[in-house]
């Protein structure tokens, strides 16, 4: 009489199971493979996300006039951490979406005016020429918005995940 196959009771998929009981074995096998597939899918889908960002928009007044061209920067401070959010201000308005908006929490706001030096900023030749004409000093004009709104900004806003999504500033 032939001895029974050694591993037949374990019913592992990759062990040759012969004779009786292989029907049950393949059934278990099917469930095992489905289970494996499911586990792989669940494990494989885990992605890393950055901090939560919020869509914010608003208007900026400088000296009671709409800021024509500028830049608004939200930098997280005081415990809130995350990347900075920068938007361009056009004719007084700025607009962030949930992908590039400020992170939830306290944010320092810096507002700058984009100054027109009389040539396009990517025109190196014009910059070099202007520099030569001025005798080698910096060519770009001074920032018209005072430093307490940009370089040494004291403007702090709390960005909440829900609620007020409209932030206006009057400088």
């Amino acid at each position, binding site marked *: 009489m032939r001895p029974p*196959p050694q591993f037949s009771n374990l019913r592992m*998929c*990759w062990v*040759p*199971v*012969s*004779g009786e009981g*292989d029907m049950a*074995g*393949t059934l278990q*096998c*099917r469930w095992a*493979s489905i289970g*494996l*597939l499911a586990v*792989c899918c669940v494990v*494989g889908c885990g992605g*890393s996300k*950055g*901090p939560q960002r919020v869509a914010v928009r608003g208007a900026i007044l400088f000296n009671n006039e709409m800021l024509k061209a500028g*830049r608004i920067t939200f*930098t*997280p*401070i005081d415990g809130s*951490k*995350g*990347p*900075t*959010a*920068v*938007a*361009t201000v*056009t004719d007084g308005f700025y607009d962030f979406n949930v992908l*590039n908006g400020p992170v939830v929490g306290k944010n320092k706001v810096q507002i700058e005016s*984009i100054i027109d030096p009389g*040539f*396009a*900023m*990517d*025109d*190196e*030749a*014009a*910059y*070099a*020429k202007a*520099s*030569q004409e*001025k005798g*080698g*000093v*910096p*060519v*770009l*004009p*001074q*920032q018209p918005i005072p*430093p307490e709104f940009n*370089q040494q900004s004291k403007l702090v806003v709390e960005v909440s995940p829900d609620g007020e999504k409209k932030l206006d500033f009057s400088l």
Partner: protein
Amino acid sequence: MPRGRKSRPGFTLIELLVVIAIIAVLIALLLPAVQQARESARRTQCSNNLKQIGLAIHNYHDSYTRFPLSSIDPGLGKSGVFASILPYLDQGNTYQQYNFSLGNTDPTNLIAVSQKIPAYLCPTAPFRRPVPISGCDSNSRAPGTYAACTGSLDPYGTFPTTANPTSVPNNGAIVNSGSGSTSMRDLTDGSSSTFLCGESAWNFGDYLWGAMPATPCSGQVRWGFTYWSSPYPLATAFTTAGPFNPKSMQGDSSRLSSFRSEHIGVVNMLLCDGSARYISENIDHNLLNSLATRSGGEVVGDF
């Protein structure tokens, strides 16, 4: 005795099918991983490029006891870091061709500035238009994908002058000629927590050729500005003042001097100790600014 199942050991058809199915699942899982392995290799190659650049800058420092300037002239038009370190990157012949008293856009320097230097090109970064286009990219300058870190403020900044009393000098490890010069001893924050260089990319789909200077390309998509030979801030003298790793310009040309890359979610940055690190694009901005400054006095934690 009937022949059949009993007498022949082996696999049944269903078992075979299951095995094949499992193999198929494993292959399906593995194939994307292979693609990621390719990208991973390119990213490692990119960090190797940065390390070579770091080594070259250290060798430059050994020769001149200071770091190369991001721009050797106040007009920001002659040459910068990547031209200064050429002899230390085995590019001595290109260096010999370069006339440093003339600008990088001077036709005399055409042969030097049009050299594509492998160490200055990240293997991940695709070029969505040919660079250079003769007649558009001035002086047919070859592209680069790396830029020096000049701090956390305005890259154009210099010491205050009578014309601009609020101007603030560069506060990074590499500075422009208007902000003095720097050497290892100026890195009081520690060379392991100060950026030396970082990545740039040709990835701004909304950056168009301007009307001035007039070129045949005006109005077409320009994608980027980083020519290795140009010392201009939008080309190779970046700061962390703007957004980190932006994907578009949004009408603000200062974003051209933001560190950015074509890798997914990270930017390769070179530190002053010569090591290259992958920095997540979601890094806290205050931490990023601390790393960009050479003597800010900040305590930098883990990053």
